[in-house]
């Protein structure tokens, strides 16, 4: 199956559970098969991911609607500037878990752009087409999401340092 890994990775990050991701991927491939007639060439991975994403959103709406209305809390932190020392972000194994938590803590509409860009390597143009968002929104969501990830990781590392871990 082409792009199964990409489909699963996105579904797993959007639904956050293995079994839910598997269900969504099966459903998405069925839809892809059914709508194959609508595929007019171009990047087949982006086309499939669009279907996976739509299937995820339908699934979330039916099962965990609150996750879709979660807002990006701007009041918690000032997201325009972060004072982060790059060295504190040199992640090793233990901190990978932290990065995972940080990603899962992002609202789904922000999480997905990071997954598509940094894990899947899609271009802004492809992300815009998969999410049906303007390019500028893709860029600004990425900026806010990554800044938040950085804050999350840094804050936890500082807490650990204070506890003497």
């Amino acid at each position: 199956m082409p792009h199964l890994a990409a489909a699963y990775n996105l579904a797993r990050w959007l639904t956050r559970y293995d079994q839910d991701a598997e269900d969504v991927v099966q459903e998405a491939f069925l839809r892809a098969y059914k709508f194959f007639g609508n595929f007019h060439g171009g990047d087949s991975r982006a086309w499939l991911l669009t279907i996976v994403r739509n299937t995820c959103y339908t699934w979330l709406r039916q099962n965990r609607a609150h996750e879709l209305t979660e807002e990006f809390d701007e009041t918690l932190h000032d997201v325009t500037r972060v004072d982060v020392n790059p060295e504190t972000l040199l992640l090793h194994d233990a901190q990978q878990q932290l990065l995972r938590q940080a990603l899962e803590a992002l609202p789904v509409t922000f999480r997905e752009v990071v997954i598509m860009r940094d894990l899947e390597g899609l271009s802004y143009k492809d992300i815009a087409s998969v999410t049906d968002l303007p390019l500028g929104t893709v860029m600004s969501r990425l900026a806010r999401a990554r800044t938040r990830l950085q804050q999350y990781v840094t804050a936890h590392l500082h807490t650990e340092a204070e506890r003497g871990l």
Partner: protein
Amino acid sequence: MDCDETQDLLHGYLDDELDVVSSRALTQHLQACPACMQAYEAQLTLRTALRTSALYCTPPPSLHKQVRAEVRRASRAETRPMWWTWGGLSVAVAMALVVLLVWGGGLEHRRAPVEAHVLQDVIAGHVRSLMANHLTDVFSGDQHTVKPWFEGHVDFAPPVPDLTAQGFPLVGGRLDYLDNRPVAALVYQRRQHVINLFVWPAPPGAARPASTVTHHGYNLVQWTTADMTYWAISTLNAQEMQTFAHGVQQHIAPL
């Protein structure tokens, strides 16, 4: 460019998504502004952490089978009245699988010739790599470091020729984005010239011998083997570029 603008464009810069003019302005600002440089470096570290992490979720091996079975079932349900006499694996199922396989990659070559646009992409990729100070993601002259790095970053295994003996030391590798897909960029050096060698999988039957192009002062050599497309670009003179291309070809198909 001031700090606010820089913050706005920083992520486009990190992702090589800016136009050349903004990219250059941003590079200049970063060199002059330690605060923005620090923000940039922090983001670069985060991005590297994300990309090199084990955060990519791979599907369980069983899922592949399940999905295929589902698609088969669906195609059978749709087509039974017509095809049931074929029994077992119906023609419709075979067709469904062919459709999925074709869709996997074969469709690329149905598109109109994209040479001109690929050429532009290759030049843009080369220029970006030099201007955005983003020449390599993996900085190593050792092919045994660079080659495994790509395994985690692209869905194919680009050959990484060692051309030190021919006078083209390897500098490193980088992930780039050309022709609407992620590609491997290998970086070599000859005196002060940087050579980018872009490699990505070719559709079946696309093989063609090397051709050279000169465009905007860049010398490019392009060829396609049975499985990969290669584009080499540099400001190096045409003759040395051909020596380089020849070295690469000998490495991938030793005579």
